[in-house]
């Protein structure tokens, strides 16, 4: 399967393995397409997880990661793509309905927007919160003091 994808997409897709687990790094422009092929042709019918990683020293700061599973093949695969700060990535809610909250969480925690998501808003933090906590430049003790003072009526949550 991976060989076939590789021959179709060439340099846009790089298959890798670590600790016996397969994953592939694909170009951002291929994103909805590769996921659709994996879902429809390769039977990866279960989207386990969507998450992201922040590498502030890199030019394209974020990795977005999809963890997929196929019931028919009993196999897992991860798809990874690199995007720059402020860039968005195509939503996969139309491919797996369960991607909805997972994408919202990535947006909440990293500030990465998903194009075509039906309801792109925060999920765990309150709507008016400033900042995205899982970015590396967001300190562990940092918080939105203004929000805390206005909404909770206390000086600080610390």
């Amino acid at each position: 399967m991976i060989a076939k994808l590789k021959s179709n997409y060439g340099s846009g897709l790089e298959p890798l393995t670590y600790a016996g687990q397969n994953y592939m790094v694909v170009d951002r422009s291929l994103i909805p397409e590769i996921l659709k092929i994996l879902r429809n042709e390769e039977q990866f019918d279960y989207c386990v997880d969507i998450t992201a990683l922040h590498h502030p020293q890199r030019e394209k700061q974020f990795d977005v990661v999809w963890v997929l599973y196929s019931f028919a093949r009993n196999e897992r695969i991860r798809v990874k793509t690199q995007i720059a700060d402020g860039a968005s990535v195509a939503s996969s809610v139309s491919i797996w309905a369960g991607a909805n909250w997972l994408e919202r969480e990535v947006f909440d925690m990293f500030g990465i927007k998903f194009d075509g998501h039906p309801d792109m808003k925060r999920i765990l933090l309150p709507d008016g919160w400033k900042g995205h906590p899982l970015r590396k430049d967001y300190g562990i003790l940092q918080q939105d003091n203004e929000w805390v003072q206005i909404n909770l009526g206390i000086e600080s949550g610390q």
Partner: protein
Amino acid sequence: MTDPNTTLSHLDLAELATHEKPFLDANELVINMGPQHPATHGVLRVILRLDGEKVLGLECVIGYLHRGVEKIGEHRTYTMFNPYVDRMDYVAAVSNGLGYCETVEKLLNVEAPPRAQHVRVILTELNRIASHQLWLGTHALDIGAITPLFYTFRDREEILKIYEKYCGARLTTHAFRIGGLQYETYTGFEKEVKKFLNFFRPKIDEYEELLTTNRIWVERTKNVGAISAEDCIALGVTGPVLRASGVKWDLRKAQPYANYKNFDFDIPIGENGDTYDRYLVRMAEMRQSVRIIEQAVDALPEGPIMAKVPKVMKPPAGEVYHSIEAPKGELGYFIVSDGSTQPYRVRVRPPSFVNLQALDLMCRGELVADVIAVIGTLDIVLGEVDR
């Protein structure tokens, strides 16, 4: 959809009587349930759109218990983060610890010795029973059956006593360490676990006697909150909810971890995917857990309980996704190491969070009182939803 601007004279009154379609906005009632509501099992807020008693749709508002567990993970060493994971799904803390320890072991490329694996299976399966007991008690209480709560909490106590004797804690146990176990089992551990199994086996019958053929229970759960296998898979729903819809999939069998491949057990499944089937599946799962524990105790090997792991853990740079079958579903950890003593990123794939997404679909067309039943049958723990 009826155009809200349509005047009443244009509406077919017979169609309105069937309640198939919402008519006029004025008839749609939006009510708020929670976040402080005893039946939401924590701080879950549900915004319901109603047409009379019928649910047209709902939206969950979550995050009230958000503590930033993933962020904390990036600022602690691998060993220091271990107790934090217990505080996500606090009724199945041992399962959380197992998933975390195994993921880091994969990164370090070590394997826990056989004795440790056996003890891990025993404690994790005991935890599955405890988690299902808590679910049963509270779920039945929500629906109006008070007695099962007392029975399940009485029996769950015996499991917590075993935990307390083993590691000193009852709920957030921190029972496992990366590479194996910290403590050897106490004297008489096997005997006490076996005593518990013999005590517990007839108790499952007792629970079933109270509920399985109880007219009120059946009426309140049969055909309530049904979800098809296709919808479960599309939404990523796992665990007993998926199995009750007829999908025979359990990570303990599909991709065995720890040493589950050595034990003989069945995967109970349901047919209709309704609340009643999910109840039956979880009851059957408790019986299967008893079977697994029995085999594990009988075959408990002698030997070391800790693999050779460095005092200061620095896994080589890389990333690993590993998941286990927690009582609620697939609990996954995605840990990225940059070669330092702290994880670069710890991502937890929480089963409750993903399963809760199905609430909207499962409640559509049901009555308000059934929302309570469906929240209970999803078996969510808000500590894990919000992390």
